[in-house]
């Protein structure tokens, strides 16, 4: 929604750069992790997911890395474009519910 970017950590990159957004999760029993993108005034949009028995998964221009030892998740966006500007949330799942992180704002300048 609007104003969701207030008080968030911000990553500023140039168009064409690679972006890395990080997330620390809390529950070592979580079995599934998801990244969402949220543009201003819209609902969160699914990007990519990864199961806890994997350490890497690739999509189109995006890669998610999972390090269970330190409970860390990252989203890598290759060749970042202005349309990638948004707030990015990680979420962890146990059973049928998700717990979201507080988000990171990505700003891409031309």
């Amino acid at each position, binding site marked *: *929604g*609007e*104003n*969701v970017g*207030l*008080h968030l950590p911000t990553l500023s990159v140039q168009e064409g750069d690679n972006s890395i957004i990080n997330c620390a999760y809390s529950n070592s029993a979580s079995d*599934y992790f*998801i990244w969402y993108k949220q543009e201003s005034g*819209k*609902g*969160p*949009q*699914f990007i990519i*997911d990864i199961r806890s028995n994997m350490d890497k998964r690739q999509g189109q221009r995006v890669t998610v890395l999972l390090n269970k030892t330190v409970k860390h998740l990252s989203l890598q966006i290759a060749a970042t474009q202005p349309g990638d500007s948004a707030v990015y*949330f990680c979420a962890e*799942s146990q059973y*049928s*519910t*998700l*717990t*979201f*992180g*507080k*988000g990171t704002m990505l700003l891409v300048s031309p």
Partner: protein
Amino acid sequence: DAGITQSPRHKVTETGTPVTLRCHQTENHRYMYWYRQDPGHGLRLIHYSYGVKDTDKGEVSDGYSVSRSKTEDFLLTLESATSSQTSVYFCAINLGGAYEQYFGPGTRLTVT
């Protein structure tokens, strides 16, 4: 948008009044969720439903109730709205996979 609509999209109401938000899906999915989103807090789960008449509480359920009398509709009710319930409310559905949730466009609620 995975067939999810929310109504109303915007609402302004006064403290102490009841408010009901509606989430409607056309996909016949079992799981439906209500979240609120506030600056600095991200998305927090209020209530969810795993079938008709089957609901459970989330992280921030106090002051909210829900009902699901048919598969396609999940209603969120604020019995007596307070200013702390000013927020953007999102509904989500689970598209059959255990974990992927798809979100509606949101309802901006302002309690004056």
